[in-house]
């Protein structure tokens, strides 16, 4: 039984094959014919090719001649028509002022609709058309130094080992150009472009197709859309304009300018400047030799190791930047901004952005709101314009000006002057080498280990100043609050003239005092030579130790 099933299935396969090939059995099958032309030429000339439906291969050789071989395939014609087609087909290689023109001339326009009944009927049924199907494969050799001027549509192109000024338009087809040189203008649409090992400048224009360029010794100017652009090892400048394309660039010796949107951009090892515009693009840039300027929105930006300045202009983008050789300017909103190791000044404008900043050799200016800011190891000045930000800063090498509201401001080891305008902010300063000025309200203001003048205006704020490290003779202390107590701990052997005044509270001190009113609400204390004026005003208790 199995034997019969096997035989039956075999017979079925064979009969299917024959049935499917019935048109071929009736004499309608493709046929290929080859045409050849050769001509002597001089290097440096130009070969013009005007083609259609042609796969073209052009190769440079050491010989001073052009050879052309065309393989022409047509199908589904009756014998007479096929014969007439091939008899009237020509491969023409004609000399021109600047070189040669090569083209294939076919009579298919003339033969259209002239085939006979059965052939015509079958082609109409199967193809939906009575036109002749044709495909051409053209192989050309030219001298190595030669220019190519080519127009083709619906065919693939391969050009190799030819140096000259090439102008190529190859629509709806794959282009592969390798080991060539000179200059190249390549236009195409819908097909993949691949240019590698090109000694010279290239300009690639692809409408909707992948573009790959590798090892280009000159400048590269590349445009495509909707697909991928992969570019590697460009010795000159690089320009890429690729909307809605994924772009990956590595090793550019010159400047690099990239425009895209909505996709991913990866750029690495650019020796010159980098300029990227990528709305809605996720952007990664690494090892940029000079300045980097990046614009995007909504998607994360990651930048590492920039030799020069960094300028990021983003909206709603998460930003991570590290090892920046020059000043950095970053603008974004709503998302986290992390910046580490900036060798210069840093400006970050991030509405509603949380920020973490570490190791900046210059000054830092931050603009933000609502989200926490963590800043550390800044050699220059710090200027924060915040609103409702929780602020933590430590090891700030120069003056700090901080504006915020409602959330804690926590500063440690401040080497320069500190000026805080914190509406409703708790303030905690641990270590201030220079003057401290604080304006806040309602919340605790606590200063530890200060060494300069102190000025505090706290509306309804409890104020505590302790572990004072020093009170220089040219300094002063002005502390004013309402409804909340003041605690002031002075260092030993201090030279101060203290004036303390309260309305409803008590003044407590171990130092000898002189009453300035009958009720003891205002007292003065002189310590040492009394050179440092200290004025304390509150409605509540004042404690002086």
């Amino acid at each position, binding site marked *: 039984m199995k034997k019969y099933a096997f035989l039956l299935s075999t017979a079925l*396969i064979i009969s299917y094959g024959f049935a*499917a090939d019935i048109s071929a059995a009736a004499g309608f*099958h*493709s046929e290929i014919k080859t045409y050849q032309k050769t001509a002597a030429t001089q290097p440096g000339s130009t070969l013009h090719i005007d083609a259609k*439906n042609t796969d073209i291969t052009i190769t440079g050789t050491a010989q001073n001649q052009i050879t052309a071989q065309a393989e022409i*395939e047509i199908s589904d014609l009756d014998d007479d028509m096929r014969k007439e087609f091939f008899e009237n087909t020509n491969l023409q290689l004609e000399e021109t002022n600047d070189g040669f023109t090569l083209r294939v001339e076919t009579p298919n326009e003339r033969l259209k609709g002239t085939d006979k009944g059965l052939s015509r009927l079958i082609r109409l049924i199967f193809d939906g058309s009575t036109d*002749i199907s044709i495909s051409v494969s053209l192989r050309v050799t030219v001298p190595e130094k030669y220019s190519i001027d080519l127009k083709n549509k619906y065919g693939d192109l391969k050009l190799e080992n030819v140096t000259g000024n090439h102008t190529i338009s190859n629509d709806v087809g794959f282009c592969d150009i390798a080991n060539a040189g000179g200059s190249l203008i390549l236009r195409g*649409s819908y097909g993949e472009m691949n240019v590698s090992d090109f000694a010279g400048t290239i300009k690639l224009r692809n409408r*909707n197709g992948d573009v790959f360029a590798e090892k280009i010794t000159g400048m590269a100017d590349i445009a495509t859309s*909707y697909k991928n652009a992969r570019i590697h090892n460009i010795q000159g400048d690089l320009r890429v304009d690729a909307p809605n394309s994924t772009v990956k660039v590595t090793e550019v010796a010159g400047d690099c300018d990239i425009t895209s949107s909505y996709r991913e951009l990866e750029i690495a090892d650019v020796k010159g400047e980098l300029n990227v515009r990528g709305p809605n693009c996720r952007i990664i840039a690494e090892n940029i030799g000079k300045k980097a300027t990046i614009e995007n929105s909504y998607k994360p930006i990651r930048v590492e190791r920039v030799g020069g300045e960094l300028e990021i202009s983003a909206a709603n983008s998460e930003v991570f930047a590290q090892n920046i050789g020059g000043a950095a300017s970053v603008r974004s909103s709503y998302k986290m901004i992390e910046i580490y190791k900036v060798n210069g000044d840093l400006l970050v404008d991030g509405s509603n952005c949380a920020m973490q900043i570490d190791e900046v050799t210059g000054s830092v200016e931050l603009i933000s709101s609502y989200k926490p800011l963590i800043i550390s190891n800044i050699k220059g000045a710090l200027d924060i314009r915040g609103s409702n930000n929780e602020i933590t800063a430590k090891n700030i090498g120069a003056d700090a000006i901080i504006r915020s509201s409602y959330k804690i401001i926590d500063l440690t080891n401040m080497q320069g002057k500190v000026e805080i305008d914190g509406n409703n902010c708790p303030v905690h300063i641990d270590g201030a080498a220079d003057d401290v000025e604080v304006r806040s309200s309602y919340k605790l203001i606590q200063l530890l280990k200060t060494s300069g003048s102190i000025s505090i205006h706290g509306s309804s704020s409890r104020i505590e100043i302790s572990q004072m490290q020093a009170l220089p003779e040219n300094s002063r202390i002005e502390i004013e609050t309402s409804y909340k107590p003041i605690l002031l701990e002075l260092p030993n052997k201090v030279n101060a003239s203290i004036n303390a005044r309260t309305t409803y509270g008590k003044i407590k001190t171990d130092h000898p005092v002189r009453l300035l009113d009958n009720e003891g609400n205002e007292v003065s204390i002189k310590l040492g030579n009394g050179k440092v004026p200290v004025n304390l005003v509150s409605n509540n208790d004042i404690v002086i130790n």
Partner: protein
Amino acid sequence: MNKNEFDKMDENWKQRFRDLQQKSAPESEQDKFILDLAKTLQEPEAPPLLWAKIENKLRNEKQQNQKQIWRPSLYLRVAAMVILVVGAGFFWQKYTANEPSGKGVLNQTALQKVISTEKAYETAISELEKQATPKMQKMDIELLFLYRDKLATIDEQIAECRQALKENPGNAHIRRYVLAALRDKKETLTEILQGTI
């Protein structure tokens, strides 16, 4: 029991048999006698090589039956198998490839396969377009323009290739690019529906 059998029996057994007959012994005693007698009988031994002879005979009969059907030589069978395998592979490759190779001119069968694949894509695209259109209207304006532009570009590619196919219907290269554009359009519409950007 017949007379010959009775004569072959041992004298003791003969005597027991006679006793049973004389006293008209009950059936149970008669059964016991028969069982006892049966136990004394030796099992018959099969003649030597009986089973081997039977197997040989069966094999011969089977071979004689097989000779009635035509059986080709080993070389012919191997050649037939090679032809079948190669032929099946050829037919499989020729008639199951829905995408043209991108070179030359398609034969009628391959062309029909490609056209049916194109139609399948067009049907899928038509369905996807119905679903994607309302979603596009809710898109961010920039993204909307981008997708519109992309779809217009793909449509242009399809139209351009279709125009070329009117004059060159069996060209594998153009067919391949039509299919690529249709696939691109389907993927783009799917991307719109999934909102992956």
